[in-house]
């Protein structure tokens, strides 16, 4: 009894320690959390620039544009998720820690999501404005981005863990993650389309939630294996 209570407490301590350390590191570089946001805004602006006057088309394609850009922003930032820890040996310490690596991985991804996914979600009004999406569906679009960025972070982290020991892993990461992202893409775009058109949301929403749950529960398993093999390499 005592042991298990103690264990729970120390798991909790490890989880928060990793979460807060990562957040400190991210915030010490002010760029870390502004960058993905800035990136998504610039790319979306570029797109609308490209679409020019045809605001009708822009509105029709906005679900795809939002998703593709969010995907790229997350992908771009995922490269460094485990990289710095690998380079300075923290990853070895993480693996050697007696505490559950599963929790550590969860904490790291969560911290990462706080500085990449969350700012994007919070920027939904701005994104909607640029793309001319009606403000009436703001809650629905935000919810979609919330679930979506979560899925993107967790799935992308698998690729990040597998490529962390490679010098030029950045693009290999995209290569590996893209196929895995497709299901999320399909349902996510579907959901946004439904939301913007005012159709019933339950089917696509439940798919998204299911995907997120599956990603949260299952992807750390693959990530743990990926990290261990990377340290061995």
């Amino acid at each position, binding site marked *: 009894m005592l042991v298990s209570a103690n264990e729970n407490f120390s798991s909790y*301590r490890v989880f928060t*320690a*990793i979460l807060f350390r990562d957040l400190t590191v991210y915030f010490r570089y002010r760029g870390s959390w502004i960058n993905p946001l800035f990136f998504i805004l610039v790319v979306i602006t570029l797109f609308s620039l490209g679409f020019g006057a045809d605001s009708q088309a822009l509105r029709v394609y906005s679900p795809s544009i939002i998703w593709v850009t969010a995907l790229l922003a997350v992908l771009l930032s995922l490269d460094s998720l485990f990289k710095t820890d690998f380079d300075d040996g923290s990853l070895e310490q993480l693996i050697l820690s007696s505490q559950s690596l599963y929790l*550590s991985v969860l904490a790291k991804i969560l911290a990462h999501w706080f500085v990449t996914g969350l700012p994007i979600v919070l920027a939904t009004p701005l994104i909607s404005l640029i793309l001319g999406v009606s403000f009436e569906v703001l809650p629905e679009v935000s919810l979609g981005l919330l679930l979506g960025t979560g899925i993107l972070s967790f799935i992308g982290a698998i690729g990040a863990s597998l490529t962390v020991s490679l010098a030029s892993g950045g693009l290999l990461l995209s290569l590996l993650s893209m196929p895995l992202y497709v299901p999320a893409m399909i349902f996510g775009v579907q959901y946004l389309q439904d939301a913007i058109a005012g159709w019933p949301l339950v089917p696509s929403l439940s798919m998204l939630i299911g995907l997120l749950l599956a990603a949260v529960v299952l992807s750390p398993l693959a990530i743990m294996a990926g990290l261990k093999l990377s340290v061995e390499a």
Partner: protein
Amino acid sequence: MFADDFQPTVRRSLLSILIDPINKQLSAVNGLVLDGIGCQKAYRQLFSGVTVSLRAGQGLHVAGSNGSGKTTLLKIIAGLSNDYQGSIGWRCSDELNHVIDKSDLLYLGHLTGVKSLLTPLENLSWWVSLCLPAYPIGSDEITQALQQIGLNSELNTPCHFLSAGQQRRVALARLLLSQQRVWILDEPFTALDHLGISQIENCIKRHQSSGGMVIMTSHQVVSNVELINLNLADYQQRPN
């Protein structure tokens, strides 16, 4: 009663016993056993048949020329590499137990796990929460450890501003707080000045005298610590 020599502090006594996975009962640990460890890298046998038995309070100095496989051996013992032959385990009252809990090992390799963006204080606190989550080590103790190892004015300077030796010291400060039974130190004296080296040597001696074990490598002479010498050259096969 059991494992008397493992009780320098109340804390460590927690670790000096082991729950036998089969009989679910506590048993005392007498030492670490490496049994016929061998490793092959790219079709070359680096070493084979490394057999050592380390009792509580003893230390092992793994010697060998550059590239002989010292780091490889230490990583195997630390559990960071699975690509080896032989077996490693605790000797618990004459029986061999192959489950080494990670909370009993402290590994410090060529890479130290010091984040250059964080300050020494933040770095050490993180490590304490990560590797010693069950112990109530406060921030006072952490500050003290850093000061003891020679970091006074740099406690709140991000580590990438520090010199090579100071960065190593941030990592080595862990030894002062460690509750782990076995220390695995890969060239701990790198970049340290004389004072630093003697500090670490004292640290190791204290650990040994409280029943801890040390496995280390160093190309520098380790003068003040009693260590069993293990020369990897003796375990190399002639190239065929």
